Each structure stands twice: as structure tokens, then as C-alpha cells.
């Protein structure tokens, strides 16, 4: 299972859970499973979040694959100027 770390303010929607293991093969599956486990988090998963899989940051990449041994961080989306 992928090890998932929630960064920043997301803990307020998960009862202070900041890390957990999730069986998900893609970002879409990960979001769905996190949304099921933490219903308050679900709407925020669609709002400006990025996902770092093994260090590489992905944005708007629901279909990006996740390996079983991946380390996944969910963090604020990055923009720029």
C-alpha cells in the first residue's frame, strides 16, 4: 500500500490524521478512497491540491499511477507569477 502524507491544513478534515497507508493504483483512486474515509476531506480534494508521488509533484493528474510502495504527499497546488 502507498504511504500517504497529508500536508498543511488538511489535518483539520481528517481528525488530525496526517499519515496513513492507502491501497490505490492511481491519484483518482486515492482521492476516492480518502474521500470515503474522510468525508469532510472529499470536497477539498477537488480544490487546488497537488500530489507528490515519490518526490515528483503532479497537478491535475487524476490518472497518474501510484505504485504499491510509493510515498505520496498531498499538498497545496503550486501556481506562480
Amino acid at each position: 500500500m502507498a504511504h500517504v502524507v497529508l500536508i498543511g491544513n488538511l489535518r483539520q478534515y481528517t481528525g488530525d490524521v496526517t499519515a496513513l497507508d492507502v491501497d490505490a493504483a492511481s491519484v483518482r483512486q486515492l482521492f476516492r478512497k480518502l474521500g470515503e474515509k474522510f468525508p469532510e476531506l472529499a470536497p477539498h480534494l477537488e480544490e487546488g491540491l497537488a500530489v507528490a508521488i515519490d518526490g515528483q509533484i503532479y497537478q491535475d493528474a487524476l490518472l497518474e499511477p501510484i505504485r504499491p510502495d510509493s510515498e505520496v504527499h498531498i499538498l497545496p497546488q503550486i501556481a506562480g507569477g
Partner: protein
Amino acid sequence: MQERVKKPQFDVVGTRPVRPDGVDKVTGRAKYGADLKMAGQLVGKVLRSPHPHARIKSIDVSKALALPGVKAVVTSKDFPEQPSEFIPAGEGVVNYRDMTNNVMAREKVLYEGHAVAAVAALNEKAALAALDAIKVEYEVLPHVIDEMEAIKPGAPILHEDMITTGVTPPPTKASNISKRVEFNLGDVDKGFAEADLIVEREFKTKAVHQGYIEPHACLASASEDGSAELWVTTQGHWVVRAYCAKLLDWDISKIRVTSSEIGGGFGGKTVVYLEPLALALSKKAQRPVKMVMSREEVFKASGPTSGGTVKVKIGVKKDGTITAGEAEITLQAGAFQGSPVQPACMCAFANYDLENVKVVGYDVVSNRPKVAAYRAPGGPISTYGVESLVDEIAEKLGMCPIELRLKNAAKEGTRAAYGPKFGPVGLIECLEAAKDSDHWKAPLGPNQGRGLAAGFWFNIGGETTVSLQLNEDGTLTLMAGTPDIGGLRASLCMMAAEELKVDVSKIRPIIADTSSLGYNFLTGGSRSTFSSGMATVDAARSIVKQACGRAAKLWDIPEEAVTFEDGMIRPAGENAGKHKPMSLSDIAKVAGKTGGAIVGYAAISAQGAAPSFGVHIADTEVDPGTGKVTVTRYTAIQDAGKAIHPSYVEGQYQGGAVQGIGWALNEEYIYGEDGKLQNAGFLDYRVPVASDLPMIDTIIVEVPNPRHPYGVRGIGETPIVPPMAAIGAAVRRASGVRFFELPMSPPKVLKAMKAAGKA
């Protein structure tokens, strides 16, 4: 210029051809936002609030509409109310209620210059007369400008429904703090307990404007059938289309947006101000409407970046090992929520490989124009604090500032304080380049000092579409959708030329309009050369594949038996038969008879962006009689991944450094007690000009990004991150005084030097 570039492996990439848009720009032929004209166009003007904070009791436009030559007036009633919800769009998430209320004030005006109404008239005189004839009745309210004043109990509240998020339990009363964010790594208490030296300081930065020379401008033409065209200076015309469609409740398909040439954006042209007003006026008047901001309007009503307060605490061992870093960052959002406090927090300690970090940030509204993105939004502010403190620690430990940074520098495998581990990054290479540079070793004169600082930016990819068509004569036309601000068209043509092995001058690029190409996210986040480059390479490879397919048909052999080498299409081997190699031009001539035009098209969501680190060295001379700081030598060193066109990479390094120098030494929004901006013009808001500056030297470091076909990293934002701390460190050594507030303008420097007995 010094380059630390590997031996060129490419024919075109890494060379310096003349930019395809250069002649038009130096001859004045290039069309910027205000240059387009249409028959029958009207002049649009905006009535703006004279008050920093007031309730709008009534607006009477009847007298304005009755004036000769006045064709239309719009107020907030012409824009549908939007719910307060955060929706992914443009630069991350947006709140359309805030956006529409910023474009046109509804119940309250929240800053001096806030739009209240807009008019369209036959000429400027009539438009200005119409503005005078609009009667607005205000109930003036108390205002607050400074972010630290805005969070004090009893401060005037801007939004009665603003409840701070990120706080448990949620507050029950409204405040000016939109949100609190927190990032943690390890255990800072443990880290500080391990430290031999702990230093803690508070830093202040002022709001500064992006300072683009070209003001906001657009021309809108709405048709009776509900469709509309818009020509606009913008960093992202698909984003403009989406925002305008939402604010006006129009179909996206009915709005066609064309981006003009752009005279600077730096993040400030990623949002809308005039555009929805011009479209609404044009729809009402049934004539084209052109709107151009004055410089005063640009300063008062378009987004600067945040000023802020940054408290930093760093613990370090005697040998220079940093054991913990902690920061509290409070940023101005302007009148509506949404400062860059999150990236400011994430950037704060990104230069370092630390085990224990805690950063807390606050997003604070006050009666200022809503901030907009500005080059590495938030990063320069937090980095100024952290890098300044690292310099002070180096001084206290008696260590070389480069060696202290090398001891703690982020590298591949470092876990950033915001969570993920870095892939290959080039900070150590930049620090080594600084140490080896002539600049670092050069002697200094009297009253001179040298400083150094590092900086970081994430960089992004995103939605991108490119079309590349092989013309009948073998030349190519490239259509991209990310507005070209700093040499993009040249860089894209070079990557296409490298792939296709054609002369780069045979490829003519354009920036296509929103109805001619699939969706493109804006030019921002240092993404355009990375993302549009990736799409260009895909499109070029598609052309090669199609051309090989045509040759296979002509030769009656399988497509797999055809190869593309050295710019020629050839049989893959002797078994494929003896056929005369064909060039792309040969294929182009017969394209129409072998299946039709050959067009490479790539629509991607570019992933794999890689961060860029930089290190700047600044020499300053401080006049002890006046406090004036002169930058006498400056070197910007940065990892580009791969410099496609080194001149434009150098241009980005130089431009970012100069904007940072302005931020450090002169630029600031100055408000009076009345809450009004006192320096809304380039005479009083002092940006550095060429005569103020030395040549900005550059060193390009290249640690390739493995996720890009040519190793490209974004490079446009990092160069504005290190300058303020680098100059602060240089001023410290030149004057003997350490400063904790920007700008380090002559009166402040002189006062501090006198207080310290140095002047």
C-alpha cells in the same frame, strides 16, 4: 557572462538565433494591448472609489447616460452575483464572488481605486464627463492598511462573513484573517534543544508592484448574436476567457480571446480587471469598446504583491549544522483573501536539508488592492527573512556564508519542509559556481560590502496545446497558446528545429487565439518553455511519424521499415529496398496527394516540472553622507536544467535580479493616514533603471530535469527570490548596520547608520 554549460550536444538547442518577434518589436510594428483599433470603437473608462473603505448607499447613472456621446454604463448590477466557493481555475483555485466584487464593487468599496461603474462613450472627453456625472453616495467606514494592524482586536472588519479557517475550534467571530496554514517537519523543540546558537529576528517587507511597463488594456467587440471577441494583453487568454464567461454568465464557446504582444506581466496579468467590463459595455452599446488603464489606475487598482511580516528563528550547532528552523509569516492579501502565504511558507526553508521545521502563515485582508501573483509569489518575502538570518548566523559563527550554506544545502533526496523529497536539483552546483566565480574573489573598495543569498521556486507544468503544421514548401508554422513574454517563440522553434533537423528560421511561430487551439493554461509558474516545449517536441515527433508514413506509402514498404535520420527520411535498412531519401520538404510537396496536410498536434497536461535553485552575489557601496546604496556589481547564478536559448535565460536572470534590487532598495506602496496611496506613478514609485545598475552578470548552471526531453526547468521566477537578502547582507558589510525592513532606502539607511554611529 560566464557559462557552466556542458559541451553542446545539440545542433540548435543551446545556440542563440535571432528571435522571430524581434524585428517587429524594435520597429514598433508589434501590436500591444492598446494598439488594436476597430471601426466605430468606443472609449471605456472606469469610475473608481475615492475612499479606502465605504458602503455604497446608491449609484445614480441617469445623468451620465443622458450626456451626448455616452453609449453605455455598467455597474455591479450588470454582473450576476456569484456564490462564495473555491473553484479550480486559472492560478489554482479562485473565488468568483471575490473576483466579481473586485472587478466591480457591490455593497462596499474596499480600497481606494476600487471600480464602482464603467462607461463607454464616443471619445475620452465624453467618457470622462460621464464619470463625473455618475452620482455615488457613500457611507465612509474606518479603514485599515497594515497587516499587523488589521489583525488587532477592534480593527475595522472588511468582510463580516470572514471566519478564519485552519484554526481549531473554528472562531465564532469574523476577523481579517482569512486563514492560518501550518507546515511541520520533525520536532522543532528537539532541534532547538540541540542547537549551540539560536537567533531570532522579525523582518518587514512592503507591498511592491510588478511594474510592467505596458498597462492593462483590451478591446472588446460583442455581437448581436451573443458572441464576442476580445483582444487583450494577458499572460493567459484561455484563463481570461474562462473568467469573463463566468463573470458574465456567457458560454465559453461564444468568447474568442486573442492575446496581444505583452509588455511585461510578471504574474500581474494572470487575472481580469477591465476585460469583463469591456465585454459588458460592448454588449450594451453594440459597438467595440477599448479600455486602457492609466499608470495611476495600474498602481491603485491592479494587484501588487503582498507586504508582510516574517518572524524567523534558526538554531545551529557550532560547526554550522542547522538543527531547526521556525517561521511565522503574515501576508497582506489586499481587500480579498488569497495572499501567496502558502507558497511563502513552503519556500521559507526550501534551500536547506533540515530535520526540524515549523512554519505558520496567516492570510490577512486590509484596505489595499487585491494582491496578484508576482514572480515566485510569496517566496521572496519568506526567503528574505530566512536568508538574512542565515547570513547573520554565518557572521556570528565566523563562517563563510557559502560554506555555511554548502553544509546545509538541499540536494537530491532532501526532504523539503513541505513534504516530498527533491529529485536532482542544482543548489550545490550553484553555490560551488559562486565560490569559483571571479566576482566572489574580487577585492572591494571603501564603503563597499558583498552579500550572497540562495533562492528556490517549485515550477509547474499544466494544460498545454501546440500545433505544428508542415507547409507545402517544407517550412513550418508553429501555433502555441502560452503568451510569449520572454522569448518563448524562439525557444519553441528551436526545439522543433532540433527535432526536425531544419533551419530554425524556416519555422514561423504564432500565439494562437482561444478558438484556434485547444486549452492552454497561462504563462506563469515558470511553465511555458517547459510545458509548451514538451508539447512542441510531441508535435514535431508526430510530424516525423506522419512523414515517415507517407514515405512508406510512396515506397510501398511498411512504415516500420522507414526511419528519420539527420533530417532525412530513409529506408531503415537494405531489406527495406533501395529508395532515395526524402526530406521533409520532399514529403510536404506531395502531402496533398498522399493523404492531406501533415499537422503535428499535441494536447497534454505537462507533468514532471522540476524546481530551480539560484544563488546571487551582490556588491553594494553605501554613501555614509546620504545613506544611498549603489549596487556596484551583481552576479545571478541559477540552475536552468538546460538553457534552450541562453540569451533568454540570462534575460530572465537579469530581469528577476533587477526587480529584486528594486524591492530591496526603493520600491514600496506608501499610504497616508487617509488610507490613500501616495505614490501611484513611476516618479514616486522608484523602479531601478539601467543607469542605476551595473551589468547583471549571469552564470547558467545546468543540472538537467530528467522529465523533460531537453532537460528544461522553469527559470523565470527563482531570480527574484535571492536579491533582497543578498543586498541586505552586502549593505550590512558596507555600512556596518544590519537591516530588517525593506526597502533599504536612503533615509532609512542614513538614520540607522547615524544611530549606530556609522555615518
